[in-house]
């Protein structure tokens, strides 16, 4: 007996959703710059995030040059190396991925996918972007202040982060913390919008269980972010006070470069608890939107409904909830009470079960599908491989005693790059190739896309898969140069050089991608309204790109879930969500 979430006779819930009062721009400035239209804000968010992301990409090249060929590039000194890793990590995790998934994809897709005209608080939404931009500017400014950006590692652990043995102790760390505080304020404004829009602005018939999984992923991630970012806020404010006003929230009695400081009694572990109470949910804040996007890409391009939709929704919610009780698995060797290890290892490994269910359901969606190997589909496949790889190495690091030899080595670096670097970026690329036609009305160039995909996927895999083995060997992370070390064989240096070359090539492919984005804007093939034959609502807009207010005169009415592909007995291989069932005309839908 198969449950078919396809209402043949049900029609539409009677509730009338109030039309959102729409703000209409009056000038060029309010239309394109200080715009309150979620679609424009989404593009602003995406461009800003990708621009600062390019900075982080260049930093990764510099790091790889240093690691692959230590001593060759005299312009990179140990201090700068630490500054590079710090800024690279911080930018990629927060200012690129979080902002791009929630601010970029979220802003563009939520209103379109739920059938709203815009976000519910457009003015706040606009403010959110400008505060985010300010945060990015403050962050970027640290490259130009005396002492340069902070080199404390993206985790900013005190006491080291605010003491003079660490580069960027002057302005770098202060501006870094200020930028984070701004980011959180800006994000909260945006996040309120995403949550309330999903809860309140869905069009008629769009029940929660008919939402595309992309919306579920972004929605859950936003709820998590709203609850988790305050922890980073608290930690940043307190660390800032320790640095500026000499309080001792986190600072114990200590000697700084031979002199006793006036700090005393504080607890560095307290910072770590706060940081990771934010930091672990952050992993899923980046992963859940990727899960959602991948689910939709696979379903559309395999012309098959997503397998086990309800299980997928529950898995997203379960992962979101569980991720708040696993934070201390980042702290197994931090010196916290060892008995916490039992609890956190157990919760951490439990979270593997809903995550595994998601993976099974993706590959089972492929089973007996009609797989079109389009660029978005290729990225989705690459996402599954890299995510499974990185997720499985997470089982090493989550299992407390296995973490002991591996923590703080290159194994950790390889793991988190695979699982929350490469995998989400694959989802981002897949999403961009998939929705670019809706945003611009043109397709991205296929040949450049093929090149970009194969180089990025195979190249990134060639960087990070072997890296695990350097960690296994015992090579610590955050070393600008391992130097003469007895247990490191010469071949390990060759491997490092190989990874560096691969990194440069992968980086080059991203330039091709940027070129494709711009070139296709003018020269790309005309896409039409629904080039992939997708069923979800964003492809059913009257105009492409969608106009102001998205839906023309009347909001769409939704009759079915977003995954009616290859439905038996129906001629086409998809049925749009707003297509009334046979025997019901759109007007006659009122009971």
């Amino acid at each position, binding site marked *: 007996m198969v449950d078919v979430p396809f209402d043949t006779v049900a029609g539409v819930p009677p509730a009338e959703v109030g039309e959102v009062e729409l703000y209409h721009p009056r000038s060029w400035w309010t239309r394109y710059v200080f715009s309150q239209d979620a679609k424009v804000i989404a593009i602003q968010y995406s461009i800003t995030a990708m621009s600062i992301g390019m900075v982080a990409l260049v930093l990764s090249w510099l790091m790889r040059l240093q690691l692959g060929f230590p001593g060759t590039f005299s312009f990179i000194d140990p201090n700068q190396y630490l500054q590079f890793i710090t800024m690279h990590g911080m930018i990629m995790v927060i200012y690129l991925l979080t902002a791009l998934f929630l601010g970029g994809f979220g802003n563009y897709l939520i209103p379109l996918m739920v059938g709203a005209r815009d976000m519910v608080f457009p003015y706040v939404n606009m403010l959110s972007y400008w505060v985010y931009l300010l945060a990015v500017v403050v962050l970027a400014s640290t490259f130009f202040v005396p002492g340069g950006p902070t080199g404390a590692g993206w985790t900013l652990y005190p006491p080291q982060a605010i003491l003079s043995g660490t580069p960027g102790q002057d302005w770098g760390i202060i501006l870094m913390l200020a930028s984070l505080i701004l980011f959180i304020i800006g994000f909260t404004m945006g996040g309120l919008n995403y949550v309330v829009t999903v809860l309140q602005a869905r069009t008629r018939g769009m029940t929660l269980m008919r939402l595309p999984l992309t919306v579920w992923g972004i929605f859950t991630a936003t709820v998590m972010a709203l609850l988790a970012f305050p922890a980073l806020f608290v930690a940043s404010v307190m660390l800032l006070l320790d640095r500026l006003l000499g309080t001792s929230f986190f600072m114990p009695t200590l000697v700084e470069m031979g002199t006793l400081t006036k700090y005393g009694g504080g607890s560095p572990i307290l910072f770590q608890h706060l940081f990771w109470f934010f930091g672990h949910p952050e992993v899923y804040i980046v992963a859940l939107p990727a899960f959602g996007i991948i689910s939709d890409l696979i379903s559309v391009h395999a012309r098959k*409904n997503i397998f086990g939709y309800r299980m997928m929704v529950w898995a997203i919610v379960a992962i979101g909830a569980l991720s708040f009780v696993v934070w201390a698995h980042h702290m197994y*060797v931090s010196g916290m009470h060892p008995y916490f290890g039992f609890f956190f290892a157990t919760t951490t490994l439990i979270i593997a079960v809903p995550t595994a269910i998601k993976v099974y359901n993706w590959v089972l969606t492929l*089973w007996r599908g009609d797989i079109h190997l389009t660029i978005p589909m290729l990225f989705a496949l690459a996402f599954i491989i890299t995510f499974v790889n990185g997720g499985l190495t997470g089982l090493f690091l989550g299992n407390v005693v296995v973490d002991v*030899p591996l923590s703080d080595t290159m194994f950790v670096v390889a793991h988190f790059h695979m699982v929350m670097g490469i995998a989400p970026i694959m989802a981002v690329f897949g999403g961009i190739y998939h929705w670019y036609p809706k945003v611009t009305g043109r397709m991205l160039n296929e040949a450049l896309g093929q090149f970009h995909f194969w180089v990025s996927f195979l190249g990134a895999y060639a960087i990070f898969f072997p890296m695990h083995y350097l960690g296994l060997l015992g090579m610590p992370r955050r070393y600008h140069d391992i130097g003469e070390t007895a247990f490191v064989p010469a071949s390990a240096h060759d491997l490092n050089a190989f990874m560096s070359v691969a990194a440069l090539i992968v980086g080059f492919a991203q330039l091709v991608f940027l070129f494709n984005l711009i070139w296709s804007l003018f020269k790309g093939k005309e896409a039409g309204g629904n080039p992939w034959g997708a069923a979800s609502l964003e492809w059913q807009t009257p105009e492409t790109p969608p106009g102001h207010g998205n839906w023309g005169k009347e909001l769409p009415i939704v009759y079915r879930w977003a995954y009616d592909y290859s439905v038996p007995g129906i001629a086409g291989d998809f049925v749009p969500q707003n297509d009334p069932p046979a025997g019901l005309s759109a007007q006659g839908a009122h009971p």
Partner: protein
Amino acid sequence: MAVAIILLLVAIASVLFHIFSPWWWTPLASNWRYIDDTITLTFWITGAVFFAVVAFMAYCVFRFRHMEGRRADYNPENKKLEWWLSVGTAIGVAAMLAPGLVVWHQFVTVPADATEVEVMGQQWQWSYRLPGKDGRLGTSDARNVSSDNPMGLSPDDPAGQDDVVIQNDDLHLPLGKPVKLLLRSIDVLHDFYVPEFRAKMDMIPGSVTYYWFTPTRIGTFEVLCAELCGAAHAQMRSKVIVDEEKDYHAWLEKQRTFVELSQQRNVAKAAYKSGSE
């Protein structure tokens, strides 16, 4: 077709890389064989899952790739299959977690006969302290740190007077005797890491952390710092030398105690003072 083959090749290449990798953990020199075993077990389980998922995917891509006239099945869910997969996953996870927790329990349970050795980290060097004849380590405090007393021992604590202080030198440990390392820092976070011993723990200024192990192999092992501690993090090195019992005692005889070092410094100072007068 090509895509399916490449996907399969990625899986096969990963397995081959694992088997033939010359980069593997350093030969074990402590009692933590169980940790290595748990890692090996985890590799087996996760490796099988990885290969299975990727191979299945490659097969699907090969078998169900788009061709003229193909139509996908309509198959929203299959409760039974989903439950079986969940239960299977839960069993696999439990198979890794259970041994992990058992070994962790050993890791945090220090045997009663372990000798205490203190390791102190500071930017960017290691110092060591061994209990003297009384078998106890004296108290210490970062507030006592001075050029005369670099480890910040309490000058008034009688238990600390005979403690053996090792500065700017290697630590020696006797073979086959369990050691409890007491880890301490006077400035920032450090982490006393010897790859061959497998164990590792952060050192936190203001508190004392620990771990224990038994050295099982004679040799010289490199000490690295595994928690970012500032500009010269990568240069913070030292050595641990595991000796036979009698070599160890010969070495221990030559070391100075806290009180000897203080006197020596006082003498030197007095000499310097009188010289300048």
